[in-house]
């Protein structure tokens, strides 16, 4: 798949480490972007934190591995893990197939209501990815 085919929903915000974030009230759902899953290739292992674990914006919270590559997951916001997508243990390939839907990774109860700096809009992220690819 060429990079131009990647899709970035307008309703999400994005990090430089290729996570996406969807905020509803005080809860943020986090996953990796279409671009990230395509770059990694076939995902075979996802390691996520326990419920109630504290996560810190910009710090690693887990790991995603394809057959060939290991990549850390970085928290886009600070807070406490409120939900974990345990289905990814048995079916990590869901992240490739549906990165913005069933391939979500964790939900974070956000501790700080202030906007985390550095998050990108869909348009900004698309440009960021295009620049990175060149």
């Amino acid at each position, binding site marked *: 798949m*060429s990079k131009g085919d990647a899709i970035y929903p307008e309703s999400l915000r994005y990090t430089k480490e290729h996570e996406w974030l969807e905020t509803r009230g005080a809860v943020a759902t986090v996953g990796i972007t279409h671009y990230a899953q395509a770059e990694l*290739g*076939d995902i*075979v*292992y996802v*390691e996520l934190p326990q419920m109630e674990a504290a996560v810190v914006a910009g710090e690693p919270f887990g*790991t995603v*591995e*394809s*057959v*060939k590559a*290991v990549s850390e997951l970085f928290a886009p916001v600070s807070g406490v893990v409120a939900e974990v997508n345990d289905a990814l*243990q048995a079916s990590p390939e869901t992240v490739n197939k549906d990165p913005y839907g069933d391939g979500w990774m964790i939900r974070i109860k956000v501790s700080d209501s202030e906007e985390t700096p550095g998050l990108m809009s869909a348009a900004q992220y698309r440009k960021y990815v295009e620049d990175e690819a060149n």
Partner: protein
Amino acid sequence: MQQVTGTPLRKTPLNALFRELGARLVDFAGWEMPVQFSSLIEEHLAVRSAAGLFDVSHMGEIEVEGRDALALVQRVACNDAARLAPGQAQYSALLTEQGTFVDDILVYRRAPDRFLLVVNAGNTDKDFAWVGQHAAGDVQVVNASARWAQLAIQGPRAAGVLQPLCSMDLEPIPSYGFAEGKAGGVQAIVSRTGYTGEDGFEIYLPPEAAADLFRALLRAGRGEGLLPCGFGARDTLRLEARLALYGNDIDETTTVHEAGLRWISKPAKGDFVGREALMRQQAGGVPRRLVGFEMVDRGIARHGHTVRFEGRDVGRVTSGTYGPYVKKNIGLAYVPPDLAGVGARFSVAIRERDTAAAVVPTPFYKRSR
């Protein structure tokens, strides 16, 4: 993803075709090679169930020719090349005086006084110098790597796809046998060898003909489930079959016996470089052994991870991956002999966490004949 050295990557004759096919290209031993075309797992499974096509033109070829060619091959390579009739090949190794690996190689006997050594790309210059240093008498050693491209077609349907494009009959060629004739209309060596654990062929041919043959094989294999395959699948296939990768599982610090490759060392044939060290190790025992393991806990072991036992560092992982066919997290590691038996348990330090693994019989995958 950026290159550190600034040295331009070398390209095989198929580079333009790979770009056309949308392959993901990466640096491999200084060559720009495809790591995957579609999906590593799909490519891996295609080789197990149908067929896969690989470009391995980066491999090195060293020609050894002359009345003393056999004597030179016997001196530098540990397997017994005298057992080869013309048309036969064998897995062998160039060793240091310490019995460690300069390289692992294939030795082809094309005529009584004419051998072709196929070597790892990253070792070609080193191997050529090494073989040349040991040459004596009537023998010419030539680095012919630029004159040979190499394609590999592997999998249960490989013979059926390749046959219509060849002048020779493939069926009677045994494993590790080869024939010279036309492939895709050009003079080639067609060898029943590979690096995947499947039946299949490696085809040595002039570089200018390689892209045409690659396209012809893709066309011929379209209805048979053949896929073009990258180095990602090549690595997972060879690991399931427990085939060593130079630079990972074997190198100049590990011996033939430690690597579990005693069967390629033939001390009875007479003297060769590394023989004495191997005889000493045979008598005195090895300090460590390369074993196959499966992860018991969740987690994927990777090259370079530490093996731990009862809180101590006792070894290292040399290869590790998810095995797409065996559907397990598998690997190879050097461990002390008392941890090398099937069923032995140890830990692999994955991101600083001790993760349980168990020694299992290898190969992890063996095809049914």
